[in-house]
């Protein structure tokens, strides 16, 4: 029975190389456990990012055997059946060092997509009563489970070939706010996502939906945004 795992880790920045390490296999071992073992027992100069270790914070996403995954909740048994593991930084983002990427472009696109809540009331108003069973609230409740891990962004072919594209996460965030009846910024938001690089650039390849660790469906959210922006355009609410 194999007791060790051969793991290749990306070392360096944009121009680096994969280096192989041997890590002892353990039961219920996650990809993050393997990376942590290398950093603590073999090479303390290895850089990577994590915080909660339980699938909440969204900071530990990496490319695992060619696919972006949240490493703290990805078991070795699921992804390294042949005893080999290759772990790299997320695609479509600048590499800072080793397994850490610069998430700034990712969050700048949230800003471009008007991903910040636009309040319509003040703290002096009564708390808004939101019915949980309306279609709009259900849509918002589902998409709001996004943990900002960047897996969808790294998986997206359109982001890969069109650096201007906002990406699945920013558009899913926009979709939650479009469905939030307390928000007052929807015209500006629809305007922001209706131009080049906005929701209409999506080709519906559905890699985001397939790999989202929260089992969200950004493709469906983007398709709904296409319809919503088209309706707003035809009504003259937004201009191109």
């Amino acid at each position, binding site marked *: 029975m194999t007791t060790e795992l051969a793991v290749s880790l990306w070392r360096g920045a944009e121009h680096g190389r994969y280096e192989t390490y041997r890590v002892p296999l353990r039961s219920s071992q996650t990809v993050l456990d393997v990376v942590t073992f290398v950093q603590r027992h073999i090479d303390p100069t290895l850089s990577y990012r994590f915080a909660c270790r339980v699938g909440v914070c969204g900071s530990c996403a990496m490319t695992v055997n060619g696919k972006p995954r949240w490493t703290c909740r990805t078991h070795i048994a699921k992804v390294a059946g042949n005893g080999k593991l290759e772990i790299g930084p997320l695609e479509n983002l600048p590499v800072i060092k080793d397994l850490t990427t610069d998430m700034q472009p990712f969050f700048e696109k949230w800003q471009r997509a008007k991903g910040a809540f636009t309040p319509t009331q003040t703290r002096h108003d009564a708390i808004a009563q939101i019915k949980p069973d309306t279609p709009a609230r259900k849509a918002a409740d589902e998409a709001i489970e996004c943990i900002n891990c960047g897996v969808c962004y790294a998986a997206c072919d359109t982001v890969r070939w*069109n650096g201007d594209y906002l990406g699945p996460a920013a558009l899913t965030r926009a979709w939650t706010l479009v469905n939030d009846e307390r928000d007052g910024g929807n015209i500006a938001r629809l305007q922001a996502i209706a131009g*080049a690089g*906005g929701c*209409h650039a999506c080709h519906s390849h559905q890699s985001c939906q397939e790999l989202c660790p929260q089992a969200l469906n950004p493709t469906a959210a983007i398709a709904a945004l*296409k319809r919503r*922006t*088209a309706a707003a355009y035809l009504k003259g609410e937004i201009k191109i």
Partner: protein
Amino acid sequence: MNVRLYVWQRATAAVMAPLVMVHIAVIFYATRHGMSAADILGRTRGSIAWAAFYGLFVLAVSIHASIGVRNVLSEWTPLNERRVDACAVFFGLVLAVLGLRAVAAVVLP
């Protein structure tokens, strides 16, 4: 792709869907009834209905296809947006001219 092009592409697709069905039905009808070119021209020449049908078809195709080509050029070539737009407009005009010329050939008396 922006929302204006998206609306135009979807709208022309919606126009083309029934026209394609009728066009295919016409092809089946003409071939299964053994109609000659003279038979077909005898029915289409001077027909405002066929001129309107295929004229609309050609215009819808020209708009729809040129938007699609624009997307391909925009995503797969290093051309800037201005050149991409120029290529797409040129492609659409070529399709429209060739198509309308063909329609004229079968409907003008």
